[in-house]
């Protein structure tokens, strides 16, 4: 846990130098006037909070602090608090239900967000925690996606259920659940092919996986994780909306936060959907999948 803050900070600080530098420049020695507020708003926009959310946050600032002499530290604390207050309700770690054998986790998302890598990291953490885990290579569409998950399986000493290319992922998931139930497996992690949320047929395919799982366990899947790339802009809102509608997403994982993208869209998502953010990806290693901490994230976002 100690590593989380340091790592996230390391990842974020590189990218927030501009933001924090900008903040210092704005408020070091002047009144919080219209110009200063506008610049603050723009800084939030460049972090992908979106024009609407940035404008709301700044509006609330205007009400309480307009015209005051404010220091750099004050504005940072206040802004971080403001953002953390939005994020705090969604900072909920992923809880496994020990009564479920297995606890079924379906991992979904658009192409290239890092679903398979996230599953690999989760498998390592579950293995270290002594849980029996089974992986399902449900991406039977993309070239070598199965092999990619199998390599993760070998690395993390976790068995992988795979089928031939083009196999029906729902059938694969069904067989895997049968086996996991027989083996008293703790966690069944199902990888799926990346798909754009506006492709109805592909979204139906996901819904089918869920229908088929429920034939064995009406409560499955117990978790539906949507993996979101931190570099994504405003389209993330539409992504979450459609995935939530179609497959009842229960929580988010935000990946690639170690890059220069700040993932400000998470703030907009928290306001709009209030879905739990279970974890963030801040690097390539297994331990780089970390629980999401609201205040740390907000502070990191502002370069503290």
């Amino acid at each position, binding site marked *: 846990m100690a590593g989380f803050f340091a790592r996230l900070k390391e990842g974020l600080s590189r990218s927030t130098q501009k933001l924090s530098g900008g903040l210092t420049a704005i408020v070091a020695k002047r009144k919080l006037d219209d110009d200063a507020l506008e610049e603050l708003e723009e800084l939030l926009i460049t972090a992908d909070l979106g024009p609407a959310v940035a404008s709301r946050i700044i509006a609330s600032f205007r009400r309480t602090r307009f015209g005051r002499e404010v220091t750099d530290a004050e504005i940072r604390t206040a802004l971080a608090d403001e953002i953390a207050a939005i994020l705090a309700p969604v900072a909920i770690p992923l809880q496994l239900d020990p009564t479920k054998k297995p606890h079924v986790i379906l991992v979904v998302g658009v192409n*290239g967000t890092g679903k398979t890598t996230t599953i690999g990291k989760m498998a390592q953490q579950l293995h270290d925690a002594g849980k029996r885990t089974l992986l399902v290579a449900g991406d039977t569409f*993309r070239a*070598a996606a199965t092999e*990619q998950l199998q390599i993760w399986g070998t690395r993390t000493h976790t068995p992988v259920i795979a089928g031939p290319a083009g196999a029906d992922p729902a059938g694969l998931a069904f067989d895997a659940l049968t086996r996991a139930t027989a083996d008293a497996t703790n966690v069944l992690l199902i990888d799926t092919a990346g798909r754009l949320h506006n492709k109805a047929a592909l979204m139906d395919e996901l819904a089918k996986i869920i229908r088929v799982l429920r034939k064995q366990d009406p409560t499955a899947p117990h978790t539906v994780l949507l993996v979101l790339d931190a570099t994504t*802009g405003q*389209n993330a809102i539409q992504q979450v909306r459609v995935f939530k509608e179609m497959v009842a997403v229960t929580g988010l994982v935000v990946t690639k936060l170690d*890059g220069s993208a700040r993932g400000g869209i998470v703030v907009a998502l928290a306001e709009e959907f209030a879905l739990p953010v279970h974890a963030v990806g801040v690097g390539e290693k297994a331990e780089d999948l970390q629980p999401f901490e609201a205040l740390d994230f907000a502070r990191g976002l502002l370069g503290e």
Partner: protein
Amino acid sequence: MFDALSDKFSGIFDGLRKRGALSEADVGEALREVRLAMLEADVALPVVKDFVARVKERAVGAEVLEAVSPGQQVAKIVHDALVEALGGEGAVPLNLSAPAPIPLLMVGLQGSGKTTTSGKLALRLRTRERRRVLLASLDTQRPAAQLQLAQLAERAGVPSLPIVAGQTPVEIARRAMEAGRREGFDIVILDTAGRLSIDAALMEEVRQIRAATSPVETLLVVDAMTGQDAVATARAFNDAVGVTGVILTRMDGDARGGAALSMRHVTGAPIKFSGSGEKIDALEEFHPERVAGRILGLGDIVGLVERAAETIDHDEAEKLATKMLKGTFTLEDYAAQLRQISKMGSISSILGMMPGMGQMKKQLEGANIDQSVFKRQQAIISSMTMKERRQPDIIKASRKKRIAAGSGVNVSEVNKLLKQFDDISDMMKRVGKLGQKGLMRQGLAGLMPKGMSQPRGQQKRPW
């Protein structure tokens, strides 16, 4: 497209009756709308500011022509400037005028679609340009990445460089060029590992690959959904390896693709292709004029027509469009439309492609129409008599009870459907009116077979 934009501006310019030069105040208000539209489309803020400043310069003092309104005049200036900023009309081809083997270097962030795009590009070069292409994966980072490219090469019908375990990316690059020379390939596509723009070690590695192979084209592969970070990514890759072209992937999604403008602005390099699907032939030339409308939130008519053409039953669509325009839209038609829409995808993403529908899209979302209820609504309509479907007004309490029982829902859901139908037919009437004004002419005509056969150039109207 101009019509939709000027319609957006019309409120601003309503009070502006005078002719003559546009004042700074007139233009300023319209440009605030443009700024917001662009930010919502994920154009990076510095790029938005620069663009807006340039448009302002061009627009202030411009004479309003006799034939058009001030709103139309500003709309045209904005649109033209945006197409220009995206690279002007038409597509820029790959530079293939170099001695063989021509190295093409693919770079980008993780998950942007480099490997898939490499496969698509190989197929395109093999089939359309009749070139001998070798695919080589330099990705030693991601598990099975090299295998992925080998499998894609097979689908594209081109050879891939044999995988040798333990080689560094630079060594693989040298081996690929050597194989290219020895075996007489025209083009060698070098697919690199995804890397973060702030990862100094990996950026140094790609610099070395470039030094070792001197690529004729260095193509930056970018996800169309990218947000404000597009600027940082473009700058980092351009500084490190000198980007000569951009490929925008996932343009078949419903992101508005503002990253295109950011990329073009920072690198100065043309956007050469866009990825438009999961199939290996889904790579298209980039058309700035199409993306311009999408960025401004005015819809992508061509994209809508293409999507519709794939899924919609043309006769049925034509009947529906006629009814919509006439305002004689019944529950029966609504059920038919539900079937069409379920085939096409989420309703808001379709509306997003239609010009001038941004506002209605919001209203629809407010009305809580979601995909999952379509089926149930179809069931409810199926439980109605023909007469009820044509004259929903006659459906009172007792009929509602029967319909609810017939379709296995509560009466409240029947009420909800009727209410929604009312809302929608209201909307349709409005669409019909807009159609008379000409706003929807292109969009609806596009849904009809007659309109489909019209060459794209004719959809543009003279000024």
